[in-house]
């Protein structure tokens, strides 16, 4: 028996010729990029910085920004068992997710350790979309064993654009999205932009007023142009991942690979993190019935987490990137480390997210951060006092106001 030739020309994918895909917004991004700073994200090339991180950051907090989130991995989950499937997958109760609503969710492995976080969109009866940072079709398909549900990746079929900032509602209104001001946080609405249908969710990664627009890739450039034109008088600006990262730390949001490593990817023992450790206990519903990791999380819930991700307010103005944390300023007892850090221009505070051992993670406790500063190639070590504080660091009321104020 001869094996079939699987190298037939008509089935060959050209991906090896172009290791990183371009999003439908790539030509526009390329035009606006002043520093030619692109990074890889989930198989696509996306902008890290257009001009300067600071300039883009201030646009998030003071005007409107466009951020290309097409590389966000999107799965369609459909079928009669979609709700039981999702309920077994994620830790929240998906039966409570009403039509045209979005829920932030996490999902765990059997040990109750986080595989990833993401958002679930209820688009129709038995029709859901799951958006995540990383691909994980194997886990999603194995989770479908025994359920009447189909799971398929639709990332390339949907272009997505985050429109975020205090003037974002006004910009969208100016662009012709009639009634956008009525859209509530985590709600999904269907609008027209330049006569083209566009799906809008009031979601985002900035902790500010903002929306995410979902559209066919063919409409991407026209929609981008339409929004840029509509937002010109309100300071609209395209942003890259660096500015977004500052905003998300202020908002206290987790970033995969940064604040946690997926339990599917960790190699070393003890590097997995549970949602309880990540301060996401509010996402875990022990009452809804079984879900993957429930038994392990229940045991952890009873014994109490050994460490927790917390916010830190650190003395001084030097970001505590990768800083080790100590119980006292003698630096003898190590009790954790910083996972994300930034100077927050809006809060005027030196903030960080950090994984801290029990019992030091309690709000109000003082810990010490070991910060290294490179001053013209001379390293200086500084022990900075830090206080464990509640997240988020920045949560303006406009974020949830419906209708949002006019700016």
């Amino acid at each position, binding site marked *: 028996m001869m094996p079939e030739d699987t190298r037939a020309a008509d089935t060959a994918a050209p991906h090896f010729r172009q290791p990183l895909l371009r999003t439908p917004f790539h030509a526009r991004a390329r035009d606006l990029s002043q520093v030619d700073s692109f990074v890889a994200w989930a198989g696509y090339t996306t902008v890290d910085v257009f001009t300067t991180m600071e300039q883009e950051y201030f646009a998030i907090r003071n005007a409107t920004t466009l951020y290309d989130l097409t590389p966000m991995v999107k799965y369609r989950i459909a079928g009669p068992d979609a709700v039981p499937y999702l309920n077994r997958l994620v830790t929240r109760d998906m039966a409570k997710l009403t039509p045209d609503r979005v829920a932030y969710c996490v999902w765990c492995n*059997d040990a109750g350790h986080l595989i990833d976080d993401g958002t679930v969109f209820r688009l129709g009866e038995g029709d859901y979309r799951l958006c995540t940072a990383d691909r994980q079709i194997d886990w999603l398909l*194995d*989770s479908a064993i025994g359920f009447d549900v189909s799971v398929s990746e639709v990332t390339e079929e949907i272009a997505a654009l985050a429109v975020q900032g205090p003037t974002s509602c006004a910009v969208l209104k100016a662009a012709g999205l009639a009634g956008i001001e009525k859209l509530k946080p985590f709600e999904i609405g269907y609008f027209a932009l330049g006569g083209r249908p566009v799906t809008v969710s009031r979601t985002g990664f900035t902790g500010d007023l903002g929306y995410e627009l979902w559209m066919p890739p063919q409409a991407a450039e026209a929609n981008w142009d339409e929004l840029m034109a509509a937002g010109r008088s309100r300071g609209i600006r395209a942003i890259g991942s660096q500015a977004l990262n500052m905003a998300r730390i202020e908002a206290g949001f987790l970033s995969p690979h940064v604040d946690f490593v997926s339990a599917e990817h960790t190699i070393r023992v003890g590097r997995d993190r549970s949602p309880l450790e990540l301060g996401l206990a509010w996402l875990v519903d022990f009452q809804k019935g079984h879900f993957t990791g*429930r*038994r392990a999380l229940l045991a952890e819930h009873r014994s109490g987490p050994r460490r927790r991700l917390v916010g830190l307010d650190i003395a001084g103005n030097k970001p505590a990137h990768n800083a080790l944390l100590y119980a006292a300023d003698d630096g003898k007892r190590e009790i954790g480390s910083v996972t994300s850090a930034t100077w927050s221009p809006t809060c005027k505070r030196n903030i960080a997210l950090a994984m801290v051992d029990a019992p030091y993670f309690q709000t109000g406790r003082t810990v010490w951060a070991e910060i290294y500063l490179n001053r013209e190639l001379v390293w200086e070590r500084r022990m900075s006092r830090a206080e464990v504080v509640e997240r988020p660091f920045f949560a303006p009321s406009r974020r949830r106001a419906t209708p949002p104020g006019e700016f």
Partner: protein
Amino acid sequence: MMQQGIRSSYDCIVIGAGHNGLVCAATLARGGRSVLVLEAQSQVGGAAATREFAPGFRAACAHLLHLMPADLMHDLGLSAHGLEWAAQSMPTTALVAGSSPLRLEQSALSGADAAAYAAYTGRMRRFAQALVPLLGKVAPRLGTTDWRDRWALLGLGWQIRKLGRADMRELLRIGGMNVYDLLEEHFESAALKGALGFDAVLGTNFGPRSPGTVLTLLYRLAAEFAAGASALSQPKGGMGALCDALAKSALAAGAAIRTAAPVARILVEGDRTVGVELESGEAVAAATVVSNADPKTTFLKLLGARHLDTGFVRRVNHIRARGLAAKLHLALDRVPQFPGVDGAAVRGRLLLAPSLMYLERAYNHAKYGEYSAAPAMEITVPTINDPGLAPQGKHVLSAIVQFAPYALEGGWAERRRGFTDLLLDTLEAAAPGLRASVLGAELLTPADIETEFRIDGGHWHHGELAFDQFFMVRPVPGAAQHRTPLPGLFLCGAGCHPGGGVMGIAGRNAARQVLKQGAT
């Protein structure tokens, strides 16, 4: 016959009245639990039940007993409950086409092979004995701080250390080898090598050149040693009689048995088992449910993935459990004549595996979804020892056939007749005149075994016995100590350590695990 007063609630329900389920039920009942055994078929025994396959002719799918520990049979009082032997210490004979058959024992061998046989069997016996402690007990867990787990692992290490330097080296050397290479090192006679190699691949998805076949052989030998000295035995009335005695032992201890009562699903409330629902819709309550069904059936069909974690379901789904052995039952109007096989030998087991190459070629077909063009067989004529299994003067031939893939190319419905014909031709060559004496035939392919006995994949071990699927990873980590992730649900079948064959150890160990949990 097996029914007692029907109740709606018990301490324990055992799903399936195969031998392990019955051993488990008897042990639980003796431990003071109220027990109900639910069996889908109209008789107990599962794949070890003696069934009528042609009018007046009876045979059991599992046809020889050599793995059930003597102390287990003694503890459960099986003799008192009617178990009698039609034959014990049965001989094994290799059939060789165009040549005289070869009796598998020291005195029947000649020259270099005779000396090599003594050295080989002696060493394999020592290795097998070192593995015996591993077989009788619940497999230890890895990575715990429980002294019992550590003690069990230490015990295994000590058994191997006790072998001494030379044997330890040899065990390490051959442990991962294939049986083909091992036997080639030792023997000259093709017939001897074929017969010895046959036991390494019997009931498996392996050919003699497949990696790990020395291990499966050692495992089988160790199980035989663990069982005691009775070697190959044939219960009077067929293997089903053993199960009837087990059932009587369970009933005497206070257990109830309902036949023709197939379980549809395991009921769960508040993340623990609360009983089962029968296919009839009737619910029976029990805080403990012990499943004698195979792991895939138990977890994916009866319980349902939604009560389990994804990683666990992934592991269960990956259990290799596709049978490659078929069973042939023939109703014969006279005793088959195997040339050169004397009256004593024909009372034992006859192996049709004339060489290792013959076995390997037979296996080649199975790898590509074909049945063997020249199949290997383990043949018995149980009616010589036990005439009651057939009408007066008539006989039954019972043969395990290797290899017949579960998922046959073209499907069994289309090709059953062709395979049966091939088997009859093969047997005719070994026993001229046999074909003309056939009154009736039943072929149980792995697909039939799946349907008939509700074993997913139709594998008689409920899952391949291979290095990656035994001991503390059998059937999967998280259920290897009979407990499952769902509180109240236990496994007691061949899918558990120490595995299949009519052994009963899994049933007994499962019951002990349940009893250890304290009153339910």
